[in-house]
C-alpha cells in the first residue's frame, strides 16, 4: 500500500461517511430507520448527499442528542471518526 493510502486508510480503516451513518441508523432501528434518518437530516439541515467531514460531524452531534439508540449509534461513529483521525495524523507525522 502506498504512503498516501496509509494516511487516508490507516491500518485498513476507512474514514466514516454519511453513507456509513445512514446504514448504521437503518441497522439499529430496523423498520423505523428511514423515519429516524429523515428526522436526523432535517434536524441538522443536511440533504444526506454530502460527502465532507464537517457534514458528518454535524450529523454525529445531532445523533448524540437524539433518542437513546441513536445516541449509541452516534457514539460508535464518533469513536470510529476519532480513531481514524488519530491514526491518520500519527502516520502523517511519522512520515513528515
Amino acid at each position, binding site marked *: 500500500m502506498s504512503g498516501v493510502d496509509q494516511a487516508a486508510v490507516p491500518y485498513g480503516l476507512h474514514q466514516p461517511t454519511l453513507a456509513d451513518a445512514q446504514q448504521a441508523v437503518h*441497522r439499529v432501528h430496523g423498520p423505523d430507520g428511514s423515519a429516524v434518518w429523515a428526522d436526523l437530516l432535517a434536524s441538522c439541515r443536511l440533504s444526506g448527499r454530502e460527502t465532507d467531514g464537517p457534514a458528518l460531524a454535524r450529523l454525529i452531534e445531532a445523533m448524540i442528542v437524539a433518542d437513546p439508540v441513536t*445516541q449509541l*449509534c452516534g457514539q460508535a461513529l464518533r469513536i*470510529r471518526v476519532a480513531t481514524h483521525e488519530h491514526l491518520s495524523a500519527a502516520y502523517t507525522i511519522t512520515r513528515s
Partner: protein
Amino acid sequence: MDTASLDDLFGRLGTPRRMRSLAGYNLFAPQLAAELDPVCARSAQRLGAPVSLISIILDSAQYIIGSTGLEGWINQVQGMPAEWSVCTHTVLAGAPYCVADATTDVRHERNPLIGMTGLRSYAGVPLQGDDGEYLGAHCVLDTAARTFGENDLEVLRDGAAEAMRVLRERS
C-alpha cells in the same frame, strides 16, 4: 476485514433488540468511570496485569466505560473500531474468551491492534443484561504471553458482576 465481513459483524452487533437493551442503561452518566475504574484497578492488581477494561460493544465500535493502565490514542478516543476489539469476540461468544499469545494466534494474526499496541495476551468475560443480551466485556490485557486459568476468570467474573451492579443502578 473486507466490507462484506464488516457488514456481517455490524449486523450481528447492531440488531435493534440488542441496541434497545444497551439503551436501557445510562452509559453516558458522568460518574460512571469513577465507579468502574476501581473495579478495573482491582482486577488488574489481582491478576498482575497492566491493563484492565470494562467496555460496551456498540454496533460498530468498542466503547470503554471503565479502565486502568490505558494510554495513548485508545485512552483518548475511549474505544476503537469493533473489528479490532478482542472484547467483540467475548461478546459474540457469550462466554469467557482468552488469548495466550496474539502474535501466534491465527484468530488475531491479521488484527492491526496487535502490532500497534504490543498486546499479546487477553482474558475477558461477558457482561450480560437481565434480558440475556451480551452488552460488553470486562477484561485484562498484557504485553506478555500468558495462559489464563479458571481462577483468573473467576476474578473477572467478580469484576463483571460489580460492573453490572453499577450499570443496573443507572438503568
